[in-house]
């Protein structure tokens, strides 16, 4: 959480096209160095895909973007994560407020055990939304491509839906409060191929209004939906397992003409 001030950094705030400027120099879990040297600018209105082998720290970096990692004991980030020109790890920043602006969709669909309607209205009520809640719920469900399937069972439990529907419900819940950024942590890994396809179409649809950061274990998914791809790998040279950013660039470049040998090998499927 202590931000190290470094001289060679020209701008403190965000470049205009960057929604979250993540400069994770070091992320610790206790004494263990989990991630190093990962500067990942999340560009506005685009999907940034995080790929890499297991344990490369891609989820850890993603969860640092809305301070979800604060829940983990011993978590510490050196560096800064700029959102609207403010370092979200600076003193006096309330992580609760940060999370209200940066929504999150998890690996396992996790609707609340409430009705479909209440699930989507949850964030609105939390923020004491004064407008027409019904309209906003319908809008959010429509955006999540779920409205037609659930409009007749808004009172049914969110847990009664299928896995893919639950995940779209979670997306609707996240977009109902209109955050600027959506973090998606392997949102399709618990879903079947058809449900995955729908979520991917939905992401492409949503990126017009939201900035999306997507962790995926599935390289093809990144190739299909991400505009920018960040490739992470694991460094086991110092005895530990430290993740780091190998390279980041337009998805086409990363998949067709990567700069780094390691990226090339990973894309070719030589390790995973």
């Amino acid at each position: 959480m202590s931000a190290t001030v470094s001289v060679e950094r020209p701008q403190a705030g965000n470049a205009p096209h960057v929604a979250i400027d993540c400069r994770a120099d070091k992320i610790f879990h206790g004494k263990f160095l989990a991630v190093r040297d990962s500067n990942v600018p999340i560009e506005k209105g685009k999907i940034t895909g995080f790929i890499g082998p297991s344990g490369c720290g891609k989820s850890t970096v993603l969860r640092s973007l809305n301070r979800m990692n604060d829940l983990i004991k011993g978590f510490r980030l050196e560096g800064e994560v700029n959102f609207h020109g403010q370092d979200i790890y600076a003193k006096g920043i309330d992580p609760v407020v940060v999370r209200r602006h940066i929504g999150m969709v998890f690996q396992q669909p996790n609707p609340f055990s409430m009705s479909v309607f209440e699930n989507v209205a949850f964030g609105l009520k939390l923020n004491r939304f004064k407008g027409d809640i019904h309209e906003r719920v319908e809008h959010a469900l429509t955006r999540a491509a779920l409205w037609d399937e659930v409009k007749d069972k808004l009172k049914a439990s969110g847990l009664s839906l299928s896995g893919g529907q639950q995940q779209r419900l979670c997306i609707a819940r996240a977009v109902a409060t209109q955050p600027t950024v959506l973090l998606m942590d392997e949102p399709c890994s618990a879903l079947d191929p058809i449900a995955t396809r729908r979520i991917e179409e939905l992401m492409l649809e949503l990126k017009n209004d939201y900035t999306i950061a997507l962790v995926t274990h599935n390289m093809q998914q990144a190739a299909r939906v991400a505009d920018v791809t960040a490739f992470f790998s694991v460094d086991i040279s110092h005895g530990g397992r430290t993740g780091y950013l190998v390279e980041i660039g337009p998805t086409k470049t990363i998949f067709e003409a990567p700069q780094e040998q390691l990226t090339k090998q990973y894309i070719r499927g030589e390790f995973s």
Partner: protein
Amino acid sequence: MITKATQMRESTRGQGSPETPSLMRNSFEPRALRDVFLTVGAWLVAAVGAVPLLSVVYMLIVKGGARLSLELFTELPPAGFEQGGGIGNAIQGTLVTVAIAAVISIPIAVLAAIYLAEFRPDSRIAALARFLSKVLTGFPSILAGVFVYAAVVLLMGSYSALAGGVALAVLMLPTVTLTAEGAMRMVPQRMKDAAIGMGCTNAEVVWHVTVPTALPSIVTGVILAVARVAGESAPLLFTALFSNYWLRSIREPTASLAILIYNFSSMPFDNQIELAWAASLVLVLIVLTFNILSRFIGRPQV
């Protein structure tokens, strides 16, 4: 052509003969006999276990059912040689003391459970509170009565329904705390993560997600605890005492079904003994109602 799998099958059968195995039932094989023996044994033991329960219910219905009438619920208990009468004040007293116990114990128990399950589950205070609660669940109920006698009755200067309620609350507190804690721990972490990801403070996670999700189980625990203390007599002996009149204030002593059963069953009058049976039936019906209620509420809601 013999595949590897068939070879293995042949070898497990011992002989390499290609004959078809017999699939017929053989009831005198040792395994089949053991199966029959265990099944019959389990049935028998279950039947033996049900005998006391069923015979108690049967006795209550036969002996107590005779006096079941409106009069039973509206009249005061009769004096020595009087005929008729009812147990209205005892029903009133039981319901009032149990209500007082619930009002005192539920908020404390639920808040304590929130602390144990959500706020500081690993702290030393939590470990101590959990340990003491477990000890208290096995606490002899008469000691709860003695404790409240010293703490409330002596202080207020008289036996009272309030003191009775406090004594029952002491008995309810640990069970409700532990069941509520268990219910909140059962709420999946990913639901709590979702709430945190939405920008909930710790308190909002608890009030908007954990408690509502755990509520059916918490209510079940509460109702079962209520049902248990409704039949307690020992703690009331030292606290609520008994009364032959309607309860007008919770600062007065009160009758209760359990104490009435105890008092009347040892009297030499048939009328009182009949009333004791009727009171037993009513008490069982009250407890049963609570149990059935808890089954309905304990079902997942939405």
